[in-house]
């Protein structure tokens, strides 16, 4: 009550402060990215070559897509621990489908690739559906539900691949993906842009997107307002897994093989990128732009450290410190 009084009489001041905080908040990560690139540029002039900046862009496109997927589960107050192993499973499964079709009908490699991609996406949707139903209907905590899914995906990935990479993927896949450009934009970047645009459209322009934010912000209130919260929850996790599957297919296309160990550290990176970029762990908040910023930041950090020859193990330490400080700064800005 007292708070309300304070707010009441303080509204005009707060308004200014809020807009100020928002402006500063929106600028802080781009500024850090800018500062960081200056530091790397000074330490290693090759950092600023067009080729390296292009590299960063291509590399970050994978992480950005992953972070966008993860964001869908974060918005509804969940998180998805299974994304890493889902990537492995989708990679291996789609590669196996492609390899099998390519060997039975070698004359149609494109068809084989297309069916393989379709299978990968279908697997993503299925995994997301199971996650979502477990969480929404059986009311299993997202941590446990997706942890279980992590084990399941890992097991399936290593079982169907026998633990080895799947190599017999038609090479049109890797060639097409890595060497083609659309309007001069490399295909991985173009894919990431497409995913981002569609995701932003879903979040901002569709009723489903609106419901995602409302359910994440206050699940009980959304039920009272007649929003089908359970269905929205399932939809969020399905979308998350679907986008993750897209990332998995991008990664498979890049390596040109199905890798059972591909997903390893990607789950943590996807969460880190989203949260550092500004997606809230408490739900109800998150924009595609956050994921783009977070993804570019983490990719640039590791690229820069590679350029100035920071040892790989030491990079992990830096990443850890960065994650904690990044989230801390984010909290400060929201206060």
């Amino acid at each position: 009550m007292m708070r309300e009084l304070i707010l009441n009489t303080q509204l005009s001041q707060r308004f200014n402060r809020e807009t100020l905080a928002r402006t500063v908040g929106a600028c802080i990560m781009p500024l850090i990215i800018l500062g960081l690139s200056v530091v790397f540029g000074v330490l290693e002039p090759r950092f600023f070559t067009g080729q390296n900046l292009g590299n960063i862009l291509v590399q970050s496109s994978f992480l950005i897509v992953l972070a966008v997927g993860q964001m869908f589960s974060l918005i509804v107050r969940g998180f998805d621990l299974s994304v890493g192993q889902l990537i492995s499973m989708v990679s291996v499964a789609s590669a196996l489908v492609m390899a099998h079709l390519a060997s039975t009908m070698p004359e149609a490699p494109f068809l084989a690739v297309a069916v393989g991609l379709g299978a990968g996406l279908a697997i993503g949707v299925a995994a997301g559906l199971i996650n979502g139903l477990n969480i929404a209907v059986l009311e299993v905590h997202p941590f446990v539900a997706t942890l279980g899914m992590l084990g399941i995906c890992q097991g399936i990935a290593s079982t169907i691949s026998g633990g080895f990479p799947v190599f017999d993927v038609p090479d049109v896949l890797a060639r097409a993906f890595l060497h083609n450009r659309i309007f001069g934009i490399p295909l991985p970047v173009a894919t990431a842009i497409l995913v981002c645009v569609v995701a932003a459209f879903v979040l901002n322009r569709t009723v489903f997107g609106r419901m995602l934010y409302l359910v994440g912000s206050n699940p009980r209130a959304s039920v009272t307002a007649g929003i089908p919260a359970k269905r929205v929850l399932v939809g969020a996790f399905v979308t998350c897994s679907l986008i993750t599957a897209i990332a998995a297919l991008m990664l498979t296309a890049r390596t040109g093989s199905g890798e059972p160990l591909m997903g390893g550290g990607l789950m943590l990176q996807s969460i880190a990128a989203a949260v550092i970029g500004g997606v809230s762990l408490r739900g109800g908040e998150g924009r595609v732009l956050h994921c783009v910023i977070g993804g570019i930041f983490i990719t640039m950090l590791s690229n820069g450290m590679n350029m100035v020859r920071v040892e790989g193990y030491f990079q992990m330490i830096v990443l850890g410190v960065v994650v904690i400080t990044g989230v801390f700064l984010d909290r400060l800005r929201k206060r």
Partner: protein
Amino acid sequence: MTDQKSPLIELRAVTKKFPGVIALKDIDFDLKKGETHVLLGENGAGKSTLINILAGSFPPNAGSYLINGVAAKGLTPHKARLSGISPVFQEFSLAPELTVMQNMFLGREIRRLGVLDNAAMKVRAEEVLSELGFEINTEIKVGELSRARQQMVEIAKALLQDVQVLILDEPTASLTDSEAEKLFELVERLKTDGCGIIYVSHRMAEIRKIGDRVTVLRDGRKIGTVTCADTSDADMIEMMTGRKVDTLFPKVVQKPGKEAMRVEKLTSSCGGVKNVSLTMRHGEIVGIAGLVGSGKSEIARLIFGLESIATGAIFLAAKTEIRNPSPRKMLRNGICYLPSDRVGEGLAMDRPIRENATIAALDTEKFNLRGLMRRKNERDAANKVADRFSLRPLDIERRVEALSGGNRQKVMLARGILRDVEVFLFDEPTVGVDVGAKAQIYHIINELVENGAAVLLISSELPEITNLCNRTYVMRLGEIVGELLGDEVTENNVLNAIFDDHTRMKPDAQVPA
């Protein structure tokens, strides 16, 4: 008057500032031995700040605080407790996962050789509870108790030590009638023992019952201290609200028309509502009065499908029966429920006003074009509603979090305007709402009824019931015990119905709420 000794506690010219606001200004206050001193004020008047200063939660910016005539410097909640000042706040200090006994001793456990002495604590806890006449098992986890029982534990916790000053912050807000009665007995007993009691409330009936002196606060200032016996209700309300009672409420013209909804023999699965039948008509405000825990809030929740129904039926417009109600189904049938807990289940606090205004209408064609948001329609509609309700600030992109209680309630009301709603179920629509906004909300409700809506007004505030309702059901212990019509809806009649035969109630006949 009988003793001229120095008061137990005394505030002199106390001022408390928070960043950007003066919560209390130049407050003088004192409490004598053996008296009940009521703090009366609207929400936001500064009552909470005042008792927080008394309890040592934070220091005043100016002025002095004397305990037994000695200036209290560097007071902390812990030190205040040691001086015999025991607060019972509205936000409970109970840990849901601990037992009653563990909670009572939380922060001051009895230890023997470093190990908890559960036996000793249990004995003492049961002693205090039985002294109070509360029948509560000390081994039960607090999270499993009803809110009323939690309130009792909270009070018992405060009385575990030697108490000189007991601070009760709206303690009956969640008690049933017989429990409230026990509390009043306890207060009397403590008074005769020489305790001083500070009692925060804005319920006239209660204040009449136990108050000796009343200090009225408004907007952080002290309006005056009066003796209960010499002051009329109307005067006190006028002191509290700053305006005559009759300007607060609009003149509602009730034109009861066709039946809008009928509920027959509704009983809830958990037993909080038994055999309730009621009817609502277009163009009429129907009230449900009763104490908290009487089941009046549950009725709306049952109708709206938020709690499960054991038996009974709900009929719309005199014929169509609605089976298995759910919020979605009810909204589509033109029924809207506005919960009392706005933060918990009413609003998405960190989303903008615009999104909260349309939250319940996302499936209507007006805002939904085959799955796409009609953003212009939404903006226009939200702006129009904000204008109509004179929302402050008028910026529909502001987060609801930043609004005052009254404006939050208006945002929630918007959902009933933005889709075809004919039946409104209000649950305590003015909880946490300041006077000005209260009048506006009453005005809006009046408008709804004039336009032919049917309104169910569930309220613990008797003036709301008596001034707005054409008909009123009175609930006690989960059942409807009376229906008052037109001129019969007076404060006295309602109170009589609520308290009618409470003396015959046995404690074990209580409803688990």
